[in-house]
């Protein structure tokens, strides 16, 4: 009865005709991790007792947020008829910030399960990943999940899917990751429909890196898909993009724990340990080949990681600066997309300008720094990369408002994105209003069904990075889903707005905005700061300015009363302790010129709130 392989083929000597490499494409919370768990159980790769829910998400933050950041691959044996097969399930990151990583994972597969929540239907993220899977020519196996839910409408959403990819609604499999219903049929379908890897077993070795992680004990662990040939431990290997060479110390597969193997053969998915110390030397998308017998050309599609969002990270306690540097160094071992360089701010002191793939990436890094490294941080408003042309024709790359050139400017080029929003059709108006307000241009609209519509906007990346998604959520009662990818650039009328305290610009508060939004930014910041900065012994003007032109101003009036008088009887200590507390409070003040600004004011002023 059990279709589990009794005597499965071993890694390194598995014929590619019995290998099936696939991934699961799903919107967040549609049940990818749960389904993966169920597959591990059905194939007896883990026993129910070993089952820790959501086996594949293994970082704390991922577990908490329920999103997969780092992908992994698991080898599962499965029998159909009398034939033993090897299924390699590659878990892909689920967030747009990691689109490139997703594309490399997809490139390691021949098939993809399109997993859709039977109570929710298709969402923007599903679409984006589905299109990407189709671009990679993957065999798509459509699956509706959570059919055990009373609210499930499998018929309705099967129709939505069939409209989308042009198949018979009856071909959409219906499963429940929770009860396990339909999971074995799904595994059979994978064997039947996903093509076996094609590749030349005799050709020089080529392995595509689709992920690499840093392990404290083993150094860097590189995940690869063997495209051609074979790799074996103790042979010399070479990374084709970086050119660096190593000795292969170990190869193996995960099932689900690491099992060393005699090698990895064509079509197989597994890991390599090379003694590389830093993930930056084992780059996602790079090709591993044999040092002795190198391949002629690398596998296509390699790209350097490209940070798109920049933010300044500063320790609240200046003496934590070395600790912050150390923490960033450590994080970078495991995150090749993270880049940083030292930066100083007059207002915030010593810190780093850090480049991220997107806002989620920023948030994750920030959270890990605070949680795993116990650092209290201030982060400045996120910034994209602008190319600013000055009058004399030089082009300045600006990742920080302080780099924005002074003086006359001929043009500013800003990065754009294509945003895909899926919403119930009643919200079309709100989405359009918001997107227009955020300088988006409508580029298309399609009805997925009568009630749901896909809207596409060409929109400045800076707006997406700032608060577009939060606003989108709040204006659509949480129904909207968003996906985006970088898409060209445009010339725009952008200016730098400075915020001045007592006439001195506070670098941490400067921002690059569209001229039409400069005024509202200025008003918002000046009034926020007026609330946040305590009154001083003198009047403090707060101004917003474009160059030398003041566009908004507020005044913090001088404090007139700063004395506590009450009859405390003989309790002199109480009054003294109040003063001693003020002395402590002083230490959390930053001096901006002669103005005392509490740390909290920086944090609050720099936090993006969407209540406006």
């Amino acid at each position, binding site marked *: 009865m059990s279709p589990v392989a009794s005597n499965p083929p071993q890694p390194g000597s598995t014929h590619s005709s019995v290998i099936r490499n696939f991934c699961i494409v799903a919107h967040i919370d549609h049940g990818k991790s749960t389904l993966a768990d169920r597959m591990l159980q059905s194939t007896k790769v883990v026993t129910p007792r070993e089952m820790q829910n959501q086996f594949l998400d293994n970082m704390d933050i991922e577990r908490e947020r329920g999103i997969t950041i780092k992908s992994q691959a698991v080898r599962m044996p499965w029998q159909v008829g009398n034939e033993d097969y090897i299924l390699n399930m590659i878990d892909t990151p689920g967030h747009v910030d990691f689109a490139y990583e997703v594309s490399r994972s997809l490139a390691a597969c021949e098939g993809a399960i399109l997993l859709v929540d039977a109570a929710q239907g298709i969402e923007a993220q599903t679409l984006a990943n589905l299109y990407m899977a189709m671009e990679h020519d993957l065999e798509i196996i459509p699956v509706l999940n959570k059919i055990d839910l009373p609210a499930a409408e499998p018929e309705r959403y099967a129709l939505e899917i069939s409209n989308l990819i042009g198949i018979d609604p009856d071909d959409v499999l219906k499963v429940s990751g929770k009860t396990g219903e339909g999971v074995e049929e799904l595994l059979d379908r994978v064997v039947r429909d996903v093509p076996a890897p094609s590749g030349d077993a005799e050709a020089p070795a080529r392995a595509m890196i689709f992920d690499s992680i840093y392990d404290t004990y083993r150094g860097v662990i590189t995940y690869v898909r063997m495209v051609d040939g074979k790799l074996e431990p103790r042979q010399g290997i070479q990374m084709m993009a970086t050119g660096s060479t190593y000795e292969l110390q170990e190869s193996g597969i995960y099932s689900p724990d690491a099992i060393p193997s005699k090698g990895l053969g064509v079509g197989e998915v597994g890991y390599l340990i090379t003694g590389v110390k830093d993930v930056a030397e084992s780059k996602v998308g790079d090709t591993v080949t044999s040092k002795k017998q190198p391949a002629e050309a690398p596998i296509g599609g390699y790209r350097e990681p490209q940070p798109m969002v920049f933010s300044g990270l500063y320790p609240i306690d200046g003496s934590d600066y070395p600790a912050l540097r150390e923490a960033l160094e450590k994080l970078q071992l495991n995150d090749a997309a993270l880049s940083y360089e030292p930066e100083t701010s007059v207002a915030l002191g010593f810190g780093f300008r850090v480049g991220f793939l997107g806002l989620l990436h920023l948030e994750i890094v920030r959270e890990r720094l605070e949680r795993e490294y116990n650092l209290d941080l201030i982060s400045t408003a996120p910034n994209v990369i602008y190319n600013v042309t000055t009058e004399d024709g030089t082009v300045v790359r600006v990742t920080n408002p302080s780099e924005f050139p002074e003086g006359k400017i001929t043009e500013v080029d800003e990065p754009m994105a294509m945003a895909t929003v899926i919403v119930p059709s009643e919200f079309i108006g709100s989405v359009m209003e918001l997107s227009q307000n955020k300088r988006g241009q409508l580029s298309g609209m399609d009805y997925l069904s009568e009630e749901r519509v896909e809207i596409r906007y060409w929109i400045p990346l800076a707006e997406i990075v700032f608060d577009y998604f939060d606003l989108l959520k709040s204006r659509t009662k949480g129904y909207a889903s968003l996906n985006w990818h970088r898409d060209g650039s445009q010339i725009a009328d952008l200016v730098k707005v400075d915020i001045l305290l007592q006439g001195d610009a506070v670098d941490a508060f400067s921002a690059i905005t569209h001229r039409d939004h400069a005024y509202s930014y200025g008003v918002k910041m000046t009034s926020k700061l007026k609330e946040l900065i305590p009154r001083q012994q003198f009047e403090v003007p707060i101004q917003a300015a474009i160059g030398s032109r003041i566009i908004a101003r507020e005044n913090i009036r001088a404090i*007139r*009363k700063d*004395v506590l008088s009450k009859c405390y*009887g003989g309790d002199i200590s109480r009054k003294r302790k109040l*003063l001693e507390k003020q002395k402590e409070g002083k230490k959390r003040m930053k001096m901006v010129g002669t103005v005392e600004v509490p740390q909290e004011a920086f944090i609050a002023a720099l936090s993006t709130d969407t209540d406006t």
Partner: protein
Amino acid sequence: MLPDFVAAAVNGSDRTFSLYVHVPFCSSRCGYCDFNTYISPDLGPGASHESYADSAIKELEFAADAMEKSGVAAKPLHSVFFGGGTPTLLQATDLTRILQRAEQLFGIEDAAEITTEANPDSLSLDAVQRLADGGFNRISMGMQSSVSHVLQVLERTHNPDNVEIAAGWIRDSGLEMSLDLIFGTPGESIADWKRSLDAVLTLEPDHVSAYGLIVEDGTKLAAQIRRGVYPNTDPDDQADKYLLTERRLAAAGYRWYEISNWAYDPHDEGIHQSQHNLAYWRDQDWWGIGPGAHSHMAGLRWWNAKHPAAYASRVLANKSPAIGHEIPDSDARLLEKIMLGVRLAEGLDIEELAAQNKEAAALVQREAKVLGAQELIESSALENGKIVPTLKGRLLDDAITRRLAGF
């Protein structure tokens, strides 16, 4: 037992010795009040309206004994102050009994100021006369305001008429009278405050204390403000009212001698200033009797168990009611000295400070120049080696303290 350094510093010195007696009872709790006071008339043995005087007397005896055993020479009391709570919730004879026992134990200076606090609606002509007969020579009455809606927000139990009548009894009994006021209560207009000041002046007190309302954590008022029942207090409003107070009182012959205190002294003779309060600000010695009372002798500070029942059980078991003490280190002593001195019209004496700490005095000299230029302290006084806040400086007195203390 007191540590040895106390006897060494006190004996033969010109440090004065005062007595504070805390009475931890009120008939109801005012919304703004966070003093150590209780509504229940009976909190246990030795802690009821009837039995409290005996507990206080036991602590007095304990104090005299401890001082003697520690070799601290007895000094007649320079001032005595009964505060609360509402001391006048006890029988007048209980208050005078305590006072008489103190006199037996320590003696009392001839011109000593002997005060009790009183709530306007807790007095009677009979009680006032008994207090006068029993040795009290001053009553400090909690008037707070003469405007009904302000008294309501403060949740005072008295009405404006109570104040007028009680003031008559105090006068007729030949006692000096001080009035406590609060300004800046939510809903109090400038005109309201003027009316209160006018009412004060018609009562012709010898002394006035006027405090800007402080919204203390944990009080009912704080909760009401948080919930939006009342607007929060406004520091600018309090500043305006303080200036108004100074102007009105000064014009009527009152002189400020501490930030919140004015003495009727039209000819600048230094009269009517509260000797007891000055003892605190001048860093003199005092013994605080009663639950939660604080004491100070020559740099040693200690305080009693806060709850009356806990206090009484200790005292009745012949144990010290003190539950904590500190000997502020030199930095803390310095901060205290500055903080107390700059509140006074007589000012902070830089030479005295130099005796305590030369470097700190030098810093004070330097910072004083800046403060003088900002017109926060009197330049003329500075020439005589004193730091005295100007009118503007009185409103920024904590900022002056921080500056002089170097932070």
